[in-house]
């Protein structure tokens, strides 16, 4: 099963998100990530969601999404070129003996330390999801206290 990145623009309507997610859950599909925020038009929101599924079922879901009152446009970004980014905020154990190693790793992944307490280093990083995965694997041995990821945002390109 392939991961699909689906981008939708929707009107701000009552129950919209529940209707959209219901089309996936009714078929036993998990939404892997979901990002919702406003767009250049304040009455329109954009959803970017990732889901793994068989092509015919995803196609059926896309058609059902297009039928929902309030859905303006649906795109399966995998059908063309796109750019994706994900933001990570993570608290890593403030292990004084190995702090320099942690800082080097963060630098390698073009991240930043944005807060430091006696208990943790707070790290911010941005990139494609597999890069975020990589950074987390690298940091895990130092003790991950809390991981917050935004999920994928993605935009089509020419």
């Amino acid at each position, binding site marked *: 099963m392939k991961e699909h990145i689906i981008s939708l623009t*929707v*009107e701000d309507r*009552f*129950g919209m998100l*529940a*209707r959209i997610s*219901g089309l996936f859950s*009714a078929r036993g599909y998990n939404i892997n990530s979901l990002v919702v925020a406003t767009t250049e038009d304040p009455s329109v929101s954009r959803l970017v969601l990732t889901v793994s599924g068989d092509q015919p079922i995803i*196609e*059926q879901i896309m*058609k*059902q999404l*297009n*039928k*929902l*009152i*309030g*859905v*303006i446009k649906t795109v399966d970004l995998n059908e063309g070129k796109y750019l994706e980014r994900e933001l990570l905020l993570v608290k890593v154990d403030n292990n004084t003996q190995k702090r320099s190693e942690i800082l080097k790793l963060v630098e390698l992944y073009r991240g930043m330390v944005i807060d430091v307490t006696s208990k943790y280093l707070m790290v911010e990083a941005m990139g494609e999801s597999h890069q975020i995965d990589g950074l987390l694997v690298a940091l895990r041995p130092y003790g991950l206290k809390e991981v917050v990821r935004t999920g994928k945002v993605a935009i089509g390109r020419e």
Partner: protein
Amino acid sequence: MNGSQILIESLKKEGVKHLFGIPGGMIIHFFDELYQQKDIELILTRHEQAAAHMADGYARATGKVGVCVATSGPGATNLVTGLATAYMDSIPMVAITGQVATHLIGNDAFQEADITGITRPVTKNNYLVKDVRELAKTIKEAFYVAASGRPGPVLIDLPTDVQRAETEFVYPHKVELKTYRPRTEGHALQIKKAAELILSAKRPIIYAGGGVILGKASQELTEFARKTGIPVVLTLMGLGSFPADDPLFAGMPGMHGPKYANYSVLESDLVIAVGARFDDRVTGKLESFKANTKFIHIDIDPSSIGKIVPADVPIVGDVKKVLKELIPLVSSVNCREWQAKIADWKNKYPLTYRKDDGKLRPQFIIEEINRITEGKALIATEVGQHQMWVAQFYRFNHPNSLLSSGGLGTMGFGFPAAIGAKFGCPDRVVFDISGDGSFQMNIQELTTAVINRIPVKIAILNNCYLGMVRQWQELFYGKRYSGTHLGSCPDFARIAEAFGAKGRRITRPEEVEPVLKESLKETEVPFVMDFRIEQEENVFPMVPAGASLDEMISGLA
């Protein structure tokens, strides 16, 4: 005006004459306003599920939007089966539910249920109206959405304080929805391609469904079939959209289709699907259904096209409009041999049953109902063996004449649907052909029919079993009749009398004609006929679930 008055005025603007439902604490304000006007008649049912089925039956028989009403909580949840039934069969309906006051929503208030949440997967759209100023616009939108495009049920949830709240009443002339514009015009190039494919086909078949009836396109379908000479098979939902007595009619294909219908579909080289969605009960094993066949698929719902079978020519559009465009582009198709082959199958493998042993058989009863009503009655059915016998043995020659829960398969649907249909079509003879199991699922509505003087005829094909499940148990589960024997209880004729209806018990074939004739003379109250049929009669032919359409079990037939 207050919210309740706005609701009533809006319903009037939509031409609503009948409202099926039951009051309760959170809809009492609306019922109070309803009491003070005369344009809309309230039909008080005895269960909310029946109210939903009545609105549904009304819609199926008349083509108009059916409307039902219930209170919050249990009243609203009782509508759910009715909404799901209508949703699966694309029936235009509006359901109105009371709700607890806006400030109490989400507080587990008395008789509170999140009905918009519960009904989201079984409605085309639903609304929780929290501001009375939104009410008129919402009702306009609800009726528009319910009846347009691929129709379906819509629910409006109305909190009690919004019913009381005051605002100025302005009913919008039209609705414009940026994100809801059903495409009705078929793509001209695709229609041309379809015509070319049709004219070059050797063994074409038209496979039409409920979309033709919903789209009021029976006349166009008939013209198209007769002009081209292409044989027609119909789904359960499509029965009546093409005359059963036309020589081109080749039956209902699928699990209980006659051999000639299934052979016609399997051996065709082109299937022209019109307003049908390739239900698994129709296709049987998909691989053999699809093999060596091309598909033209005409449907108003783009998500129906390509869902089950890939369409060689997909046409999204209103079936009536598309057929009108298509008819001038086609002429008589050269398929004499093919027509003759189907005619030969029809002769060789007619639907039949045993007639020589003097036993009361269900197929005979349906043939008699067909004969005595001259095929002109409005027939509602429940779900099960009797439903399939109706589809096989009643000759539907007119659209909007069979009211049956095809998609959801809801037992208990037919009787309330018949009552609703009679309100919409008071001049037609209305039958509910039922089983003993199904009839007991909404038997309480005998009261509604008696009080409202609704002379529907109820023909119970009583075999003391949940017959269709019993048939499966007989054929596939070693005759272990688990949970399907109902016994010969109750005495339906006496139950009918107790409700104030008429009741008869029939045990022999020669009693059938007189009792049917007697039932037609009854113009005041429901007439219940308890036909004690051969208990272990089966519906044949039968294609086992998942098998290919030509792997039929034929039984005696």
